[in-house]
């Protein structure tokens, strides 16, 4: 099954990004495909390479980057939501790109399921 994902909350403050990541990784391990993850609302804050979590904690941003590298997942950050929150191309972690809301709608159209994570 082709599964699109939307993440609506930032890292660390909220579990949504962790759960979305674990869901995506496990779906891929079970043989499904996750062509795209769309980051919206405060979810855009998952994309900045400036984060420096403590060594003994998981690195939410790097985990997403690795998922993109290993499985070709398209990590899309909403341009309008990103601009509100200071997310620009200069600070994007590897694997992320900035684009429009059309990418979310397109994922909804082309995937078998669109699964959203957030409040």
């Amino acid at each position, binding site marked *: 099954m*082709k599964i699109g994902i939307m993440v609506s909350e930032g890292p660390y403050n909220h579990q949504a990004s962790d759960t979305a990541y674990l869901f995506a990784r496990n779906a891929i391990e079970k043989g499904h495909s996750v062509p795209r993850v769309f980051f*919206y609302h405060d979810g855009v804050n998952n994309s900045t390479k400036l984060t420096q979590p403590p060594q003994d904690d998981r690195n939410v941003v790097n985990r997403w980057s690795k998922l993109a590298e290993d499985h070709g997942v*398209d990590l899309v950050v909403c341009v309008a939501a990103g601009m509100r929150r200071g997310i620009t191309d200069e600070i994007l972690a590897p694997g992320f790109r900035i684009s429009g*809301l059309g990418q979310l*709608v397109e994922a909804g*159209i082309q*995937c078998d399921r669109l699964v959203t994570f957030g*409040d």
Partner: protein
Amino acid sequence: MSDMMDDMDEGGEGVVKKFMFVNRKAPHGTIYALEGLEVVLVSAAFDQDVSLVFVDDGVYELIKGVNTKGIEVKDFSKTYRALEGYDVEKLYVEKASMDARGLTVEDLIVDVTVLDSTEMASLMAEQDVVISY
């Protein structure tokens, strides 16, 4: 639509899916309602079959007489009245959410269909994509 992944590349053109946006939050206090409205407009621009549902505090998004001066944020309630111009005409509110807040359709700025929870559930079951915030 130029940067699609390879496996997102086939199909899509001309496909019309039923998109439902479930608005559950008050218009102000968080940004969900405002940014959610932006997705609604984009999905309409993609010629999708769009429905909007208002439940819980989401019914307050449609209330008359909003004045945001005191909290110094943008009042975007007019956008709901402009939805018709984007061919977004299916607006639903949940009866129990309205009742719990002492609201009737007379209190709202747009025409809506009132559904009970069972009707709402079957409408949701008909959808291809449900985006909730």
